[in-house]
């Protein structure tokens, strides 16, 4: 990409067999990713999963241990960051404190020798409605304003690819919602390719065309937000995106287009095309909002699964819906989200209750039921590195 020209439109990004090792641990095992031009792509995952590392690799701030990075079809793996048509909105904004807002925004343009840099910078500031603060220093701005300046500073360069590293993390809820809409609008109007890294699943699902869920340095599942939500493939995705009720059982039969699973003596049907495993011990699940609560045993119906009886252990009212926790013997705790169409709870604590759901809402996971974890594992990269260092030192005999 020539340094002087703006990109005509967003370019696509390709990561091929990326492997990144830091001294002491591997951040990314093997990553393959393709992001089409002009799309809003979200990389979602818990802290320490490797998403920020991926971003830095694309920006050129880190070098992959092996693998290639292609932007718009061109191999940029060995290209320095200041020559890549990529710009980053940093998590801490990284606005230069010794320059004014307008100087910050014009910085990239000036380095590339773009004519009328200041005029273009003013345009970008108008886009985020901050042109009236152009002569201030970043420290004089509020968090939300700083975030918008950081965005303007990146967007003004019309990069082929815009990287956003959890840019909305420090904003309060209302501002965050506003900025989510703003970002989406800018991306659509200007036509850039956005790669947005976040741990906030709601944010990812609202803003992105495609979401990739990352865990332990690899992508667990990728697709449109609805697809990921309604049909999670792994327990991690099922639990990270929203909430799920997961059950362990043995496959009993696979007739027709359903897989029948024995869950604590009850026959549960899951559509074959929504189940990853068709034999042996499986883990299946259903979203809490898909469950119906019954005060008495529901009549057997074709195309409907039912569990019960159980006892209502907890009732939580949260405005739009009420959350019911039902303890079913042999199965465990089942969570139901019921929309408050009528005022007042449908069931009270201690009541007997049954749950049912339509067969097409269930899904079958890839994981073995025995490996379903209770708490998310401690995989923060900083603590991983510290643990490895401790082990190494102990090995070498130093204290």
């Amino acid at each position, binding site marked *: 990409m020539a340094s002087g020209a703006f990109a005509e439109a967003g370019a696509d990004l390709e990561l091929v067999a990326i492997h990144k090792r*830091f*001294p002491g641990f591997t951040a990314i095992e093997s990553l393959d990713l393709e992001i089409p031009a002009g799309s809003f792509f979200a990389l979602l995952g818990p802290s320490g999963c490797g998403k920020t590392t991926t971003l830095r690799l694309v920006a050129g*701030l*880190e070098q992959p241990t092996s693998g290639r990075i292609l932007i718009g079809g061109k191999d940029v793996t060995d290209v320095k960051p200041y020559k890549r048509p990529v710009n980053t909105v940093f998590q801490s904004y990284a606005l230069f404190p010794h320059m004014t807002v307008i100087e910050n925004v014009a910085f990239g343009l000036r380095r590339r020798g773009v004519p009328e840099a200041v005029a273009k910078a003013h345009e970008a500031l108008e886009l985020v409605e901050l042109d009236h603060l152009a002569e201030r220093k970043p420290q004089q701005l509020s968090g939300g304003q700083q975030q918008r300046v950081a965005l303007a500073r990146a967007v003004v360069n019309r990069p082929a690819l815009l990287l956003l590293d959890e840019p909305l993390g420090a904003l309060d809820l209302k501002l965050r919602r506003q900025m989510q809409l703003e970002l989406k609008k800018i991306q659509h109007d200007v036509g850039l390719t956005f790669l947005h890294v976040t741990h906030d699943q709601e944010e990812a699902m609202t803003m992105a065309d495609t979401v990739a869920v990352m865990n332990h340095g690899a992508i667990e599942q990728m697709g449109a937000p609805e697809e990921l939500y309604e049909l999670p493939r792994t327990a991690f995705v099922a639990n990270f995106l929203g909430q799920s009720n997961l059950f362990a059982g043995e496959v009993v039969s696979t007739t027709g287009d359903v897989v029948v699973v024995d869950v604590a003596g009850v026959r549960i049907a899951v559509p074959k095309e929504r189940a990853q495993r068709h034999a042996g011990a499986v883990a299946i699940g259903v979203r809490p909002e898909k469950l119906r609560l019954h005060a008495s045993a529901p009549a057997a119906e074709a195309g409907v699964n039912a569990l019960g009886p159980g006892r209502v252990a907890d009732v939580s009212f949260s405005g739009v819906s009420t959350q019911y926790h039902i303890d079913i013997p042999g199965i465990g705790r089942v969570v139901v989200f019921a929309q408050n169409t009528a005022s007042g709870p449908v069931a009270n604590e201690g009541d007997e209750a049954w749950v049912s759901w339509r067969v097409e809402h269930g899904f079958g996971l890839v994981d073995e039921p025995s490996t379903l974890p209770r708490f998310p594992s401690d995989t923060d990269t900083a603590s991983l590195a510290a643990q490895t260092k401790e082990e190494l030192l102990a090995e070498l005999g130093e204290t």
Partner: protein
Amino acid sequence: MAFAAFGPAALAERATPATLRKSWVAVALLAPGLAYLALFFVTPLVSLLVTSLNQPVLYGDVGQYEPALRVENYWTAIEHYWPHFLRAFVYALIATIVALAISYPVAYFIGVTARRWPFVQALALTLVIAPFFISFLLRTLAWKQILADDTPLVQFLKSIALIPPDGHVVGTDFSVVFGLVYNFIPFMTLPIYASLERLDTRYLEAGSDLYARPATVFWKVTLPLSLPGVVSGTLLTFIPAAGDFINASDTFLGSSRTQMVGNVIEANFLVLMNYPIAAALSVLLMGVILVLVGVYIRRSGTEDLV
């Protein structure tokens, strides 16, 4: 302020190794400075070592020596001057302990207690470093005059029998240590202040929340967390104090009976022109200090001092 630099650098480290770049630029940046050090620090030390083994030129003048391997110089130096070594280290040790006792509360006050009043903090810090701005020699001389026999202060102390009627304050072990303490208080206070300034008071609150009395909180939480600053401060005090010769000289606060190893190095080098002995004494002093510092750092466990 710059003096925060004397605090533990380990606490301030934010760039992880992953963000550093390997580069030939590093070599270019290092070359001038390291060359300067090699030429004007390492070579002189080697020079000292060589000189310490010199022997006098046969039938030569005072001050004429030639290269040799006269290891006996060291033995001569120790034989004649071991009291000065001992005195220097004892003075320095006492001065360091007293300076610590005085400086820690001051540093605590500025760095913790006064956090709510930045103006008081700034004022207090300025007062602590104020002595730096008056010449070292003049402030030591000032004490000599203040503690002289015929001043009201000393007369008062004699009248309440703290000092015998024919005693002196100046020219004693006390006055030398007094001078050392005074001159090195800023060196002790600033690193401890830098350490305490970074102390998160929530640790202290957690200590109280977990049933510790204020004194216990201090011993078990504050003191250990400020240890890097204490280590820096004690090193920055002890090392120069051990080699000092101003306070102990009879022009200032000392007398012929309070001479430290620094005095005899100076005397041998500049007056007697007995370079081998002076060099031998320097090498010995440097060696002992390195050993002491090494043991001290090992025990207190702070590797990252610079």
